[in-house]
């Protein structure tokens, strides 16, 4: 089976990390195609990418993660990729876990999550409280246990790429994963270690995190009942 994977690297103000991350991919994992999507960075992320001759799609305006990811999905659709991988530009994700994740794709899964907590325990911290809540909600409503729902390292199968590329409510967020499960998508997790951010700044603040949790929980608890059924076609 053809498993042509495209690694999508949304990048917003990651000039301090992008070279380390992408050089690692190019040198050690050349079997995967990648593309950086610059989300209107106002530092010199774009310039750094161009100087190193990286594959980069430049968005002149900041769209946020969802819009940026959708840009990547549109590119993947246009170029007939079999799967897309969401990969952080800050170096928190490790490419050595891509291969075990890809193997799950051959088993017929639609969403493969690189999860920190398949074999290791989720720490009891304030940071993980949100993750615990989301895990609980998804288990309560859909009887599926996603141990690391907020992990940003996810592979999406070919039949989801069209939906991601065209539907503005399909975002790389846990409530979309829940929605997909509800529509028959097969979701699984693969143990993956992740690193802490070394340089640069995360765009998440406390207010943004709380708003994020509010949005995700409202979407899963309330809005999920009203969302339309998706037709997941078998495109092989």
């Amino acid at each position: 089976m053809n498993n042509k994977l495209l690694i999508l690297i949304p990048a917003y103000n990651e000039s301090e990390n992008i070279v380390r991350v992408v050089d690692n991919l190019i040198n050690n994992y050349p079997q995967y195609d990648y593309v950086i999507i610059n989300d209107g960075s106002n530092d010199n992320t774009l310039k750094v990418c161009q100087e190193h001759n990286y594959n980069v799609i430049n968005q002149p305006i900041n769209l946020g993660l969802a819009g940026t990811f959708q840009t990547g999905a549109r590119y993947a659709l246009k170029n007939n990729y079999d799967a897309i991988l969401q990969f952080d530009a800050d170096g928190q994700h490790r490419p050595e876990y891509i291969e075990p994740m890809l193997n799950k794709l051959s088993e017929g899964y639609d969403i493969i999550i690189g999860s920190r907590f398949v074999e290791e325990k989720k720490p009891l911290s304030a940071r993980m409280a949100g993750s615990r809540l989301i895990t609980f909600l998804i288990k309560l409503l859909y009887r599926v246990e996603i141990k690391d729902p907020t992990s940003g390292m996810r592979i999406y199968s070919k039949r989801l790429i069209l939906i991601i590329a065209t539907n503005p409510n399909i975002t790389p967020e846990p409530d979309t994963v829940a929605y997909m499960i509800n529509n028959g998508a097969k979701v699984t997790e693969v143990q993956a270690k992740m690193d802490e951010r070394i340089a640069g700044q995360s765009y998440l603040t406390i207010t943004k995190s709380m708003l994020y949790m509010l949005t995700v929980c409202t979407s899963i608890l309330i809005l999920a009942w009203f969302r339309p059924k998706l037709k997941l076609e078998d495109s092989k």
Partner: protein
Amino acid sequence: MISTLTRILLIGSAFIGFLYVVTQIRNSNFTIRDSIFWVFFSIALVIIAIFPIIPMRLASFFKIESPTNFIFIVIIAVMIVRIYRLSVAVSSLNTKIKELTQTLAIQDYETSSKSDSKKKR
């Protein structure tokens, strides 16, 4: 005291508003993130209607004569804030459209005379 008619109107309009939001989300005209305000606004109206003691207590606390007036004032205040934030958002969108148009225009102009010779890694 809040009349039963007011309470019915509150619940009714909250219900209709919520249905409208949901329809727009289903038709992909409204993103979930943008709809959150209206979801909670509808829920708040329903709560006020079901538990009139809340606006009654708050009205007397703020020395406002009638709870219905209090509800009006609160809704108006919420709407003012909402409209203000929307104005700011529209202004920001206008700037972005301007930037996009300029980028696209210059890009189109340069593409017609530029030869593409960059080698990609």
